[in-house]
């Protein structure tokens, strides 16, 4: 293991790569949306996964990452979020960098029995203990306008199977393509290693397409103002957020909006992110 030895090495950044991604949002975030996944947003878009699959740096949609013989750490973040279509529909937000570990899709917003299509999720290749691994319901094609709730049956970090999450809202204001819904765990749990099924309380009215994504949040970066660019250093200013980027990490962004003012809006667009990833040692 090779850490960054000191501040001089940190500042000199002798061995690094810059990861860049630019996303033009086309999926309406929708008023009421809290989190919006950029996974299927262009450019460099990923897609609805279909069958359960583990994700890595080669998965279409991942930020372009080269592995290193040493350990790598994300040290700087430069973010800009433009005004959608030249008109501001939100004031700011949050950009959350995540490692996408495992995903599937093909779940139906009208099915009320326990859905196992393309489940269980593929085995974790990183963060295999499950501690700090979260599950989210990710929408790939609009669900219905009737708000319902969903629970997941999952295996926790122990690992103990057959755990049932708390219910989360889905459909209604949480129906649009790109909506990303983190799922709170059963009392006592602190992570997820696999998801076996998803159950809706009732039909949302439209089948659409949604799935389960297992992910690990790595960094939370503010977007203080739409239309401007911001640079943040992980050591000074981001509260020590210098996340280790594991070998083969599938890096992607999930964004949250502040002050969404319209029922049909992209929130902000484009979203441009640069991450400087530095090798330790």
């Amino acid at each position, binding site marked *: 293991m090779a850490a960054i030895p000191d501040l001089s090495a940190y500042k000199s950044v002798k061995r690094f790569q810059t990861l860049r991604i630019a996303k033009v949002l086309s999926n309406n975030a929708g008023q009421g949306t809290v989190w919006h996944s950029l996974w299927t947003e262009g450019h460099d878009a990923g897609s609805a996964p279909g069958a359960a699959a583990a994700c890595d740096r080669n998965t279409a949609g991942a930020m372009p990452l080269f592995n290193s013989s040493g350990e790598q750490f994300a040290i700087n973040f430069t973010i800009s979020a433009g005004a959608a279509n030249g008109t501001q529909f939100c004031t700011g937000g949050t950009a959350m960098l995540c490692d996408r570990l495992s995903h599937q899709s093909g779940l139906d917003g009208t099915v009320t029995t326990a859905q196992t299509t393309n489940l269980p999720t593929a085995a974790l290749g990183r963060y295999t203990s499950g501690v700090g691994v979260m599950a989210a319901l990710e929408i790939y094609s609009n669900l219905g306008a009737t708000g319902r709730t969903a629970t997941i049956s999952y295996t926790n970090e122990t690992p103990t199977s057959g755990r049932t999450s708390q219910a989360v809202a889905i459909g209604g204001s949480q129906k649009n393509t790109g909506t990303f819904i983190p799922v709170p765990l059963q009392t006592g749990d602190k992570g997820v290693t696999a998801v076996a099924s998803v159950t809706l309380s009732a039909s949302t009215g439209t089948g659409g397409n949604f799935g389960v994504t297992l992910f690990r949040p790595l960094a*939370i970066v*503010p977007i203080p103002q739409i239309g401007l660019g911001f640079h943040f250093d992980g050591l*000074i200013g981001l509260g020590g957020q210098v996340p280790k980027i594991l070998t083969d990490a599938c890096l992607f962004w999930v964004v949250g909006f502040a002050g969404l003012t319209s029922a049909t809006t992209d929130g902000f667009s484009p979203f441009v992110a640069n991450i400087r990833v530095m090798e330790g040692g």
Partner: protein
Amino acid sequence: MGALADLSDVINRLTGGNSGAPEAIPFFKDAAVGAVAAVTVAGRLSSLWQYNGIPSGGSAPGAVATPDNTTTGGLKQTNPAGGAQKWLMGVAAHISQPGTLVLYDRLLHISGLSGTSLVAQTVGGTISRYNNTNTCVGNEIWIEIYTQIGASSQTITASYTNQAGTAGQTTQAAAIGNTGLREIQRIIPLPLASGDTGVEAVASVTLSGSTGTAGDFGVTVAHPLLTVATGIGGCGQVRDAISGLPSVPEILTNACLAFAFFAAGSTAPQVMGIANFIEKG
């Protein structure tokens, strides 16, 4: 044990050097307790202890207890290695509603107290952290409501031992009951007696009169550590303890790290965040 020397020491430990044991804990709090949507009150403090989340939410404690880093509801961070100290570098969070997120060490808690009992209701227990003259400064006594109490406005006081070890001190009377001060998850801080700065123990609490409904409330002894404020809901915020003052708070062995929220409105927050820690022996 030694203090963190400089930024070189911090960046080295954040990236795993020198037995820094960096720990980045992602956390999520949904705006619900079980199947019930949570509600906040503008200008009042709300407990996120029971909020659904990752790690999962906690529950009403029942008999007096001293929560620790294994207690469900806390962040469940690892303890520092023998002889080492653990330090919080910062917290970054997306908070969906305007207000202030408070991270605290939950030192002692009890529930099962009645909103209609007029006798001194016993608290007791033994605080195991921040529990002597030098360290208990900053400990606060909070009334925490687990089942709604009554609509009759009353006041409440606590009998406690202060930072000088003087027992039988009485807090100033705080309003309890009626709208804004009776709802579940409401926290009512009790101002200490004039001249006091800390709490070593809480003996009992006494209502001035019946609120009209027994409900269920309790007492929490809390040691606030750090705050993250947002004026715009949904705009990511960072409390950087490395470059800001006061500087990095120590996280004591067995600390039960939990959250409260000082709300600007009546819509409960959803919180997604990351807390970053390092150790030094």
